[in-house]
């Protein structure tokens, strides 16, 4: 395929586990500065798609292009360095480190062995940490050990760690799971804020939350795209209703 303006272009992507096709000839395009939500019933392949993009799972065939750069052959850390950030379903933070350290570790400098040995905590690093901490509402908890945060705060912290990396594409797997109603609202605001200058893909089940943030919604079913479009359009789609309600 020739170069496109899409930030992410997935074409004919397939992955099979011992014959079972978790993702089947998938085509998906994401625009710059778009916030895309992927929904679908359990086992639809949502998480697998994210795994494929970030390199955690290797595809059987097909292509994933990020800013016209093929990702399928790259190692995980190379994909991250290209500008893709990924948040996992359950918050994945360093429980034994403080909030400050969690954020600092994620700062994209000193990523090589020698770089990290010679890394200095300079003012610009600190400034960046404080800025992100404020954004994720944790600036008063910088010295707290991450294990002591609430579940919702851990989710934010992980988002914050991704923000430290300044990714151009941010992928969030169920970011509001386990959050209170108030926290959900705060998270929605946060997401709306951070997609100003980057693209975001979110997997989510909470339809209220999806409505608040989605620019466009993609419905996955059995590894294939069932429907795509605005929230209203997707909700009215017969096939989607059948998948969610009919059995």
């Amino acid at each position: 395929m020739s170069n496109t303006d899409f930030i992410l272009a997935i074409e004919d992507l397939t992955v099979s586990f011992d014959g079972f096709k978790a993702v089947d000839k998938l085509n998906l395009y994401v625009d710059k500065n778009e916030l895309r939500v992927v929904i679908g019933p359990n086992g639809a392949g949502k998480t697998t798609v994210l795994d494929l993009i970030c390199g955690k799972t290797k595809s059987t065939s097909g292509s994933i292009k990020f800013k016209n750069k093929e990702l399928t052959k790259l190692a995980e850390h190379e994909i991250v360095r290209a500008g893709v950030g990924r948040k996992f379903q359950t918050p994945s933070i360093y429980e034994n480190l403080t909030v400050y350290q969690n954020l600092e570790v994620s700062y994209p400098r000193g990523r090589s062995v020698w770089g990290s040995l010679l890394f200095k905590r300079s003012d610009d690093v600190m400034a960046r940490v404080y800025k992100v901490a404020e954004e994720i509402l944790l600036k008063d908890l910088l010295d707290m050990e991450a294990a002591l945060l609430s579940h919702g705060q851990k989710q934010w912290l992980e988002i914050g760690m991704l923000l430290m990396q300044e990714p151009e594409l941010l992928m969030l797997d169920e970011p509001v799971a386990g959050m209170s109603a108030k926290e959900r609202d705060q998270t929605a605001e946060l997401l709306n804020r951070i997609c100003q200058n980057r693209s975001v893909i979110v997997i989510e089940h909470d339809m209220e939350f999806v409505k608040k943030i989605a620019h466009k919604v993609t419905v996955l079913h059995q590894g294939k795209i069932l429907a795509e479009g605005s929230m209203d359009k997707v909700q009215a789609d017969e096939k989607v209703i059948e998948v969610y309600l009919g059995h």
Partner: protein
Amino acid sequence: MKTLSDKLLGGKQGVLGLALLALLIMVILPLGLDIFRLNLVGKYLTYAFVALSLVLLWGNGGILSLGQGMFFGLGGYCMAMFLKLEASDPISTKIQTTPGIPDFMDWNQLTALPWFWEPFKSLPFTILAILIVPTIFAYIIGFAMFKRRVGGVYFAIITQAIALILSILIVGQQGYTGGVNGITDLKTMLGWDIRTDSAKYILYYVNALLLFGCIFLSRYILTSKFGMLLLAMRDKEERVRFSGYDVSDFKIFTFCVAAMISAIGGAMFTLQVGFMSPSFVGIVPSIEMVIFAAVGGRMSLIGAVYGTLLVNYGKTVFSETYPELWLFLMGGLFIAVVMFFPDGLAGIYQKHARKIPFLKRWVAEEKQKQTDAHASHGKVGTKLGAEA
């Protein structure tokens, strides 16, 4: 912000710990013990290098190597090869069929020095080899394993198997290695008799200084961003990888550093004890050295030294009076440390000794300073945040 000296010394608490250890090793023990016992302590301290390496690798990196004895042995053998060549000059070996080669080669009908022994006639080469050979060996193993993401128990089992292979090889190729006897009867280094009491004192202090050097090196690594990443990797490897780090590179580097530190210990062992044998290369010593680190506290560098000294002191005392009891004790120690004191001596210290009022106040002062620093920067951060 941390200065270099802060990083090496580890803050007030670190300074205190180091000062106490230095006092013990450099002053109290040499004054309190006769040269025989001091030489024993010197020998134990060579094991402390391995324990130290395991604190880096296992405590902080979560990588359990059951083959650290290999690196200790490789370092020791490199040193022993040099000393053996010096002890095998043609005059003192004139009784042999081929004078001028080590005695065990002569017994195994070798008539010339094997090519890989030749460079060990040079001391600079030997010192280089002590540092480089184990490191390269570790690099090869580490590269093959970590790039393929072998970790955890698999890594432990495979390193154990490699240690076994190496020890069978050393025993089997006795014409080149001295076999099960090892390389014995080492006498002088560049003409300096290493068996005299004065030499033992000097070697003891050289050993102690090297040990502190390795503690500083390890501490530097652990307090740098590298150390933070190591901890992060131990707990959430995936997250580190998806923060853009090549996890395997970090593990390989740690494994190599650990190998090099162990090798220095091995070389010092050879110098102080006067021989090297394959019984250090195999599985049993490799696992025993893990317990030294575990007793001291797997996360604590200084703890590793204390742990080594304590376990070996116990071994010497008990094996002199109740040899049977010793194995029960050693076995019990493994179980107890794992079940009840996973943080070892260092953990007990953290729990109890810190309650001593004077210490508490001293350490608290420093903590407060750190918090203040963050708070003030926090304000700056707020301002910046508002501007953005």
